[in-house]
């Protein structure tokens, strides 16, 4: 299946086609991973212009130029996001609260906002919704969760949630789950995920295992979730590898730090084999994200790469 999809993209996606041609003959046994930065500079699509259902834009980090993902079929995005979400968290209606500052400002262009609203519609009980602007509503939703016996699920931007618990603490029901995502790469503060989860667990009055993470990006239609630890597990139609960011032609050994490369079949109409800019390490069938790859790592100034 993957070979068919990649072959289709080589034929119909001019950017990917030129990339593969320039790198031919193919090196190693892995797919040819297109750097995600291509989404900033070109229309990366295997279908004619104007046939897209939506165009998602990333937040403007780094150069300030956003990535643009032309989505031909939104129902495919909905299906990929919903099916995997249900696999991980179950399909019961949740008391579903979202908190996505900054993303909300991007409006329709934010793939995360779109996805969370879609999940909220599908898996949220009546009264679910954003608590942006009035986080005290969380206490009411927590009471309702206890009263109705429905688990509370809070889906929010990492640093947005951190700001919330720095202002006040909550006692969420012990069945509650908090899913944090995204924000670590845009915030000024340096904090690792373990510390982030510790503070969120403390601030929401939950066990550490109730704090989960979502890994997704504007350029990908599929997501990965942690399940009580720091290891992200991809959906069955997505594969991941850890590779040398400068020469992503072979997989690194388990435990070696490198760049995360993915093959996401939900990206069938754009580019499925992508090289991300995230530092990661393989953990069994999943991976752990360690942060963003920096210029120092790409240039080799970082002694830490070999000491982690």
């Amino acid at each position: 299946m993957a070979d068919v999809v990649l072959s289709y993209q080589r034929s119909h996606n001019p950017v990917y086609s030129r990339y593969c041609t320039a790198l031919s003959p193919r090196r190693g046994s892995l797919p040819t991973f297109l750097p995600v930065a291509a989404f900033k500079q070109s229309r990366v699509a295997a279908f004619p212009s104007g046939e897209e259902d939506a165009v998602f834009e990333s937040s403007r980090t780094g150069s300030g130029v956003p990535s643009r993902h032309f989505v031909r079929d939104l129902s495919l995005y909905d299906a990929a996001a919903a099916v995997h979400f249900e696999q991980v968290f179950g399909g019961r209606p949740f008391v579903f609260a979202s908190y996505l500052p900054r993303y909300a400002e991007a409006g329709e262009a934010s793939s995360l906002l779109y996805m969370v609203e879609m999940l909220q519609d599908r898996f949220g009980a009546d009264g679910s919704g954003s608590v942006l602007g009035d986080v005290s509503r969380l206490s009411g939703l927590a009471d309702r969760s206890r009263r109705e016996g429905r688990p509370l699920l809070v889906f929010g931007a990492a640093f947005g949630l951190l700001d919330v618990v720095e202002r006040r603490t909550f006692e969420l029901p012990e069945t509650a789950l908090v899913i944090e995502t995204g924000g670590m790469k845009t915030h000024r503060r340096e904090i690792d995920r373990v510390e982030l989860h510790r503070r969120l667990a403390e601030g929401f009055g939950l066990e550490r295992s109730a704090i989960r993470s979502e890994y997704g990006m504007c350029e990908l239609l599929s997501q990965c979730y942690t399940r009580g630890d720091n290891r992200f597990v991809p959906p069955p139609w997505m594969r991941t590898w850890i590779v040398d960011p400068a020469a992503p032609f072979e997989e690194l050994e388990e435990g070696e730090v490198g760049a995360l490369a993915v093959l996401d079949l939900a990206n069938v109409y754009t580019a499925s084999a992508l090289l991300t800019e995230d530092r990661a390490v393989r953990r069994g069938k999943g991976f752990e994200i360690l942060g963003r790859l920096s210029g120092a790592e790409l240039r080799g100034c970082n002694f830490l790469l070999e000491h982690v």
Partner: protein
Amino acid sequence: MSDADDWMGAVAATALEWRDPDHNPRENAVKRTLEAENTFTREAVTFAVNQQMSLLTVDALRGWLNGRRAKTSRTVGVLNAGNIPMVGLQDLLAVVLAGHRYVGSVSSRSPALLPAFVKDLHDRLPALEAAFDAAEQVFARSDAVIATGSDETIAWVQRQCERYGIPERRRLIRGHSYSVAVLDGSETEDDFEKLAEDALLHEGFGCRNVALIWAPIDMSPDPVLDAFAHFRGVFPAHEGTPGRLAMQQAFLAAVEQPHAYGEGLEFLLSRGEPEEQQSGHVRWCAYDAVEDVDRWLRSHVDEIQLVVAGPNVRPRLSADMRLLPMGEAQRPKLDWCPDGRDTVAFLTERIDD
């Protein structure tokens, strides 16, 4: 003669021996360095060792130290990055000549040169206290730390310092940086040859490597490309360089960004936004007015190690940008202050309380 003079004399004498490529310890260390997993070529290692050794005269050392010496001797840990050969020698000498004990970690990419030099120096100076250890152990053994790295490295270093009780004033942490060239079209063939060294030596891996060239909008990059090709005739690329640049070149082709590269992908130059690329990939940026470049430089001062430019351009750029003539990026003077911070002052004033 003071103790300090004795020590400087020993350093200079050791360096004099090390100027000889056939000096056994140097020869063995170079051999081991070239066997390690890194991006070093024999020519680049030779250049780095010769360049550093040529600086170490008693007069130069005396001028650099300028009588500065710590009142209290401490153990100073240095985490050496190993991205270019012999990197960290200046820190080592600063530590021991300031009167401290040195404990360093070496990268597996450059495991042999510094320890071999220290061993030779120790033979002349039995009182020298300098040792090497694993990075984590360096913190455990140190009262002060010198380290260079990315934001994440720095975060890790800071955590280790907290863990081992090394106070902030005893940390010299240098961030990641790269270097920039500014041309105005009046450069000569000789200038371009020097620029090629500034950009391509060490496969672009050093913070002193020119990663970005600003040029007038109507200037052709052809003379620079010719100089790059010529440089590669003298300093051949590391065998891994074409592989590393292959993906970069393919990406440029994919997004139809103008670029040029040397035969066998020994170097890569692309036109585009002023953004640092991967090592060995030099970015060519067009400007309308030097004042615009100066504004850009000032807004990126924290990430720029140095700026090379010709005599017509330097007076038009802000003096605090650490301006050098072309051809000096890879030939730092002994008193060079990485990131603009004086290592000896750190060792003799800031940690000395």
